[in-house]
């Protein structure tokens, strides 16, 4: 399975190249790649159906237990097949949808990258492996949403999606790490074995909260649902693939994967049911308020995701069955509807519901696909959607609140299905929509396949789909003997009655929609306080805040920066000195004063008088020269105390500094006093404090010298092994050569920075 991932990454990398070589035929290899992966995953089917998990292990970072361990069980296989099958169709569809786009190669790169990371996500057993792929899906989603980079809307939406899911990703990482600490295992299978320890551990609650945060952001649960409708700025194949069928289900996948480990305590079930229920109802209500086809589909997707989370929250065997079947049905019909919406957009140039009438005459195949998908969405017998809906009702029968949620969502789904499958295609409207005459095979074939898939799986539900779904349910419930029975016809049960009631209510809602639409304008102000508006407010606040903070901190005066650094350093030192209260025994040091030589005093006098003169001077040239004098004097000190290397460097640097100053002298503005008298005294005080502290620390270090053999060691080894007698230099270029390499790299980068600053021309507005 590692090779599957590597193959996908390779295909992603060569996609732009293939596009350049093959032109529009690039679609051929890009469609074949997912088909190949589909075949690969099919080959694992017999083993998985017997109840064994296929495990492949590759070490990656063994020291940190980060390994590429892949594990293919029923749940993973179901997802992997869905992803690669859908991937092939979407790749095919995209070649028609984006025909002639000069950036098609790049689009395939992103899309294949996404598909590969999604496959990696669902097959990883190692939590860090899963996290890496999780983040990769976020990043590729960002790239795909922002594919139409010229449009501001797309860029903003891409940012929003990345920030929301990225933030959730961070929370998820923390949660997974806490889980791994609690369960002392870095794999999901290991965590499952140690379930009792995880449940007892004090980290359980924070881990659950963080993991839920990650899953809810990814799967667009309330209150993080707002990024998904905005993500519809992406090209339609992306919306169908990422934001309906696969990526947003990554959160569902992880919840299902962790459900056997974490379920049990009330907090898990209650929070899942609450968030899922609110999301389901909210999505259903919001979907009916929109007239953009993609927006409607996006909100119903949110609603469906909410239902899935609710089912996971109920946590009974029936609920898990319902969850998995509904997930499959939803992926099939929602994918179809999205692709059809894309086709409509492509042919008519609009996605506005009120401008689309009786398209069925011109778009027969798309219309057929949409109608089939809509029937599945509405839950009409004999489609897979019907089976899913029945199971949903069955799972929530005992709790009236949950039943209500399912009913409301179902009714809204029926209404939306009528809109998508009946109104825009077959309803006779007063006005005709302009339709581009040329029907495109590549645009109607994939939705047809998906729509018939929904029908066939519904008809053959107890023979074809059953074994894999059963393995999936067994994985989620961690019960290897669980039997899954699916059938189209249950006989006359209360559930069937509910189904028929849903259909009737949905029809009524559809008929009432125009009337409701007039009333819905009242709700508009609500959008201004919703999470989307809150996100934008927060975003702007953050930008503004960081801007003003930086303006305050970095005022452009070098003296302020030096002052901050000194303040901070002094503060730290004073804190340590206050905490540890180390004292210096000055009596011991007094006798050292007797050893002071005359020339040392002379140099000291030179420095001090130069400093005093410097403070009073009003000429730049004088101050440069006096600064040079001070520098040379300190170099003298180095020589006197036996550090010729340092002294030589100091001499040279001083010389260079003076020369460079001289070079620049006539370009600098006139020497003015920027600070008044008080500022000067303030700076003097700070410098004196800093100097005194440093002196104190130096004395302290000398008094409390730590005995160490470092000096002897370097002295010996640098001659014997490093062939050098100059220990300082040998340390620099040999023992700590890597550090020096880092330093000179920094030096080079700093030089480039200085160079670009020098080239800035402030008179021309800072342009180079």
């Amino acid at each position, binding site marked *: 399975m590692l090779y599957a991932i590597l193959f996908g990454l390779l295909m992603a990398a060569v996609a732009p190249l293939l596009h350049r070589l093959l032109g529009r035929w690039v679609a051929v290899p890009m469609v074949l790649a997912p088909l190949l992966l589909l075949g690969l995953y099919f080959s694992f089917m017999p083993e998985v159906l017997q109840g064994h998990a296929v495990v492949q292990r590759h070490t990656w970072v063994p020291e940190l237990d980060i390994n590429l361990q892949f594990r293919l069980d029923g749940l993973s296989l179901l997802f992997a097949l869905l992803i690669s099958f859908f991937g092939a169709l979407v790749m095919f569809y995209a070649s028609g949808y984006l025909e002639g786009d000069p950036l098609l190669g790049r689009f395939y790169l992103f899309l294949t990258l996404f598909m590969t990371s999604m496959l990696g996500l669902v097959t990883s057993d190692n939590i860090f492996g899963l996290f890496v792929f999780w983040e990769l899906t976020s990043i590729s989603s960002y790239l795909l949403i922002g594919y139409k980079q010229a449009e501001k809307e797309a860029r903003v939406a891409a940012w929003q999606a990345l920030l929301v899911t990225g933030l959730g990703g961070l929370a998820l990482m923390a949660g997974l790490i806490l889980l791994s600490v609690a369960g002392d295992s870095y794999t999901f299978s290991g965590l499952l074995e140690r379930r009792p320890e995880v449940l007892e551990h004090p980290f359980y609650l924070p881990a659950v909260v963080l993991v839920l945060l990650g899953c809810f952001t990814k799967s667009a649960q309330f209150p993080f649902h707002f990024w998904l409708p905005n993500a519809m700025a992406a090209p339609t194949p992306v919306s169908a693939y990422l934001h309906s069928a696969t990526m947003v289900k990554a959160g569902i996948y992880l919840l299902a994967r962790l459900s056997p480990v974490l379920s049990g305590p009330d907090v898990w079930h209650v929070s899942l049911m609450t968030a899922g229920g609110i999301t389901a109802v909210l999505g259903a209500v919001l979907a009916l308020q929109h007239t953009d086809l993609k927006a409607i589909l996006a909100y119903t997707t949110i609603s469906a995701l909410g239902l899935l989370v609710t089912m996971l929250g109920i946590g009974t065997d029936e609920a898990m069955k319902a969850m998995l079947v509904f997930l499959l049905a939803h992926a099939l019909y929602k994918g179809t509807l999205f692709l059809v919406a894309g086709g409509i957009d492509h042919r008519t140039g609009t996605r506005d519901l009120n401008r689309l009438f009786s398209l069925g005459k011109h778009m027969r195949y798309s219309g057929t696909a949409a109608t089939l998908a809509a029937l599945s969405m509405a839950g009409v017998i004999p489609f897979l959607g019907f089976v899913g809906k029945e199971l949903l009702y069955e799972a929530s029968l005992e709790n009236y609140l949950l039943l209500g949620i399912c009913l409301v969502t179902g009714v809204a789904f029926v209404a939306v299905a009528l809109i998508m499958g009946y109104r825009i295609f077959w309803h006779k409207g007063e006005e005709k929509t302009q339709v581009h005459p040329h029907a495109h095979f590549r645009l109607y074939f994939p939705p047809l396949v998906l729509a018939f898939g929904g029908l066939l799986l519904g008809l053959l539900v107890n023979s074809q789909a059953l074994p894999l779904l059963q393995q999936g349910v067994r994985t989620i419930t961690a019960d290897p003997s669980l039997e899954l029975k699916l059938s189209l016809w249950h006989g006359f049960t209360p559930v069937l009655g509910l189904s028929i009631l849903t259909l009737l209510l949905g029809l009524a809602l559809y008929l009432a929609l125009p009337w409701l639409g007039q009333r819905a304008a009242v709700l508009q102000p609500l959008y201004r306080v919703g999470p989307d508006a809150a996100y934008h407010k927060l975003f702007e606040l953050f930008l503004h805040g960081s801007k003003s903070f930086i303006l305050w901190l970095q005022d452009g005066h070098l003296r302020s920066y030096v002052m901050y650094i000194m303040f901070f350093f002094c503060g730290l030192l004073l804190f340590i000195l206050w905490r540890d209260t180390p004292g210096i025994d000055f009596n011991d040091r007094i006798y050292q004063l007797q050893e002071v030589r005359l020339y040392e005093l002379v140099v000291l006098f030179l420095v001090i008088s130069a400093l005093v003169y410097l403070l009073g001077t009003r000429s730049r040239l004088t101050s440069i020269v006096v600064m040079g004098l001070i520098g040379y004097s300190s170099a003298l000190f180095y020589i006197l105390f036996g550090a010729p290397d340092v002294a030589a460097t100091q001499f040279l640097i001083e010389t260079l500094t003076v020369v*460079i100053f001289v070079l620049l002298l006539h370009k600098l503005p006139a020497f003015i006093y920027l600070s008044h008298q008080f500022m000067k005294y303030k700076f003097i005080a700070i410098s004196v404090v800093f100097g005194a502290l440093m002196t104190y620390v130096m004395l302290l270090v000398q008094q409390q010298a730590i005995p160490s053999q470092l000096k002897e060691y370097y002295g010996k080894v640098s001659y014997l092994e490093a062939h050098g007698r100059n220990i300082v230099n040998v340390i620099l270029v040999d023992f700590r050569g890597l550090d020096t390499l880092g330093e000179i790299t920094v030096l080079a980068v700093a030089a480039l920075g200085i160079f670009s600053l020098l080239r800035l021309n402030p008179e021309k507005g800072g342009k180079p």
Partner: protein
Amino acid sequence: MRTIIFATAIRYLTPLFLLFSVYILFRGHNHPGGGFIGGLIGSIAFVFHALAHGSDHTVNTYFRLKLYSQEGKQPEHASPQYMWDLVRANTWKRAEEVTPVNWRYYIVRVRPAYMMALGLFLASISGVPGLLQGKPYMTASWLELEIPIIGTLGTPTLFDAGVYLLVLGMVLKMVFTMSKE
């Protein structure tokens, strides 16, 4: 700063400075010195030259090589006379004084930024021999011979030379840019 004494003295002092800086570079392993100091000395040599003659002149003298060749002549049918002319034109005579034919010239420029890049490259590549021997990156290896004045050569010497070039290139880049404006 165009005083004639300074300018004349610097013209002869700059090569000496450079020689000294290279000496300091190689000396660094056993005595005070090394790549950093050597690079600073070398850059000071050029900086003084630029101070005395102007930075354009420094660039033309030390960082730009004019290579002459005669138009229409291919290297394969070169006569000894042509070779002699070529050597003379490229070394001490002005091209026009050698023969009155059309001379074509190529300009090879050494930019300080390239020196920085080369220095960084040398420093980072000096660790590779260790890797090739299966030891950690930057494990030093030494030649067995001892050269007078320079001393033993080894990968740390290469590293130091990289530091030398980087420092030299960096200071020159800054000074040339500043004095150009």
